């Protein structure tokens, strides 16, 4: 019973394409996040949603757009993919803003 699940696990695509990564959590948490891990393993927040409301929107290109259809889902859509978008993208959730964070297994995006 996966708590935070992301699909796909691997995503290989060409520059200029549009792609989406899906995330679902079955923990009943109110807050969900997208993090990006670069090639040096540095983790950085991209977006945070609390009760379907966007509360953190870090400085990311507007080619990245999160969508939260309900509290259990937070999808990430990326337009016009660039080489520099290659990274591992992690979805996460927590009960509240100040609660333990639970990560999904990550999506490794490779842009060629």
């Amino acid at each position: 019973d996966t708590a935070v699940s992301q699909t796909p696990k691997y995503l290989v695509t060409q520059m200029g394409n549009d792609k989406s990564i899906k995330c679902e959590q079955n923990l009943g948490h109110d807050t969900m996040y997208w993090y990006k891990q670069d090639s040096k393993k540095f983790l950085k927040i991209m977006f945070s949603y609390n009760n379907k409301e966007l509360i953190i929107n870090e400085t990311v290109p507007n080619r990245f757009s999160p969508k939260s259809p309900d509290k259990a889902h937070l999808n990430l859509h990326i337009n016009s993919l660039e080489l520099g978008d290659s990274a591992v993208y992690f979805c996460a959730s927590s009960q509240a803003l100040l609660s333990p964070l639970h990560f999904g297994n990550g999506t490794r995006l490779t842009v060629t």
Partner: protein
Amino acid sequence: GIQVEQSPPDLILQEGANSTLRCNFSDSVNNLQWFHQNPWGQLINLFYIPSGTKQNGRLSATTVATERYSLLYISSSQTTDSGVYFCAVQRRLSGYALNFGKGTSLLVTP
């Protein structure tokens, strides 16, 4: 923004050894969490520890918020402890987003 510094950056241990990982942060925080990223890339939450000491099996953590540091102790290390250990801090000023350190990469050899 807040600086989160972890030391050492790399560590090699023989199985059975003990170690201490350190996390320093440059400003007051509301919370601190420790994570382990295993060699398969999974990120596991180890501790939610805004202050004080917690223990979970062979691992324990201590956060001294007033002095802006946290320590993660690993006792009797096992090869399955290998991976990268991250600390991350949360502040109200940044919407409670987790700000991560660069991690300590640990290799435990048989």
